[in-house]
């Protein structure tokens, strides 16, 4: 899916198993927290969780604003 989208629009893939994303061919990749809750952490309070989620989404937006020439994993 991510590749078909990339043919026409910039896309960032947020996922936990980064090697699969790389193998499939996503170009902008943001690693996430865990498979069943990529953008959350049920061990935290809802407030802390939202802060964490926001941080990851901001990282994804940063990835979208970054020009790249090859597959890039954005870890910060």
């Amino acid at each position, binding site marked *: *899916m*991510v*590749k*078909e*989208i*990339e*043919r*026409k*629009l*910039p*896309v*960032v*893939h*947020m*996922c*936990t*198993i980064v*090697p*699969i*994303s790389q*193998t*499939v*061919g996503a*170009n*902008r990749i943001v690693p*996430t927290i*865990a*498979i*069943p*809750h*990529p*953008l*959350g952490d*049920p061990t935290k309070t*809802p407030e802390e*969780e*939202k802060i964490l*989620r*926001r941080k*990851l*989404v*901001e990282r*994804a*937006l940063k990835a*979208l*604003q*970054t*020009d*790249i*020439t*090859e597959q890039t994993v954005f870890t910060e």
Partner: protein
Amino acid sequence: MAFKVIHYINQFYANIGGEEKADYKPEIREGIVGPGMALKAAFKGEAEIVATVICGDSYFASNMDEATNTILDMIRKYEPDAFIAGPAFNAGRYGTACGAMCAAVAKEFNIPVVSGMYPENPGVEMYKKFAWIVETPDSAIGMRKAAPAMAKLALKLLKGESIGKPEEEGYIERGIRKNMFYEKLAAERCVDMFIAKLKGEPFETEYKMPVFDRVDPQPAVKDLAHATIALVTSGGICPKGNPDHIEASSASKFGEYDITGVNDLTSETHCTAHGGYDATYADQDADRVLPVDVMRDLEREGVIGKLHTKFYTTVGNGTSVANAKKFGAEIVNRLVRDGVTAVILTST
């Protein structure tokens, strides 16, 4: 004496549990567990499964290095002659784990490693160079065929017999080139192939060209404050009750849902249709997979111009590459039509 084999399986095949137990940490048990029985039958006493490693699929995928090292330490004392993982059929995390363990074991102990997977399993593309992966059907219904084929290949490798071409032996091409002697000169063979091609007759190349399926990255988003960002997910998030009946696995469709005026996904409004991960956390709060709440905040604060009024969703669980491709192409056409600037795609 029979060859000593270590077998690797996941929590499901060890009968420990399904997705709710996918975080199960590595464990080793003496002897055979689960599908090892089918391998044992096929070994006919020539090889013996001395121990079985069990590891939860999510645990392995989330802690690859740690899990790999733990398991290598677990199997060391058995001094195995071979390592067999799976078969994983079309289970993505399981296939990845099987492939990663095969690669690690081959490197550490320099022994034959064999797995079994459906060709579309992501573990194939990642690890086919490092392991003998027998081609299997896409689901466990194929166990009766897969286990004997894996056992047969493992025995051949253990005995040091020469391994034939992928199609003869039933494994997935590893990209290994072998020198062969032919009666005919290369130039002659080449012309023969060319003539066959011209006639529309079948011919077999001696050197396949690699297929690179890559898409160039799009240029960066320049003006985020005026951009419309769309959310897409393969994590199965949908309105509660899954109104369009998106399948829990092998999805045949995607959903398009309006989120105008929705500021937060809750257990009252949304859930997941996905059958390939423990749904507890997504059902409690679907923002954990599809971050609508945070995107609304960013929209309100003017960081992004707009969150697109619709989100797109499907279930990426054993879904065929052909379907995923079709969904992606159709989704992006609709997004372009609606003036979307860029996409955040989340996966579980």
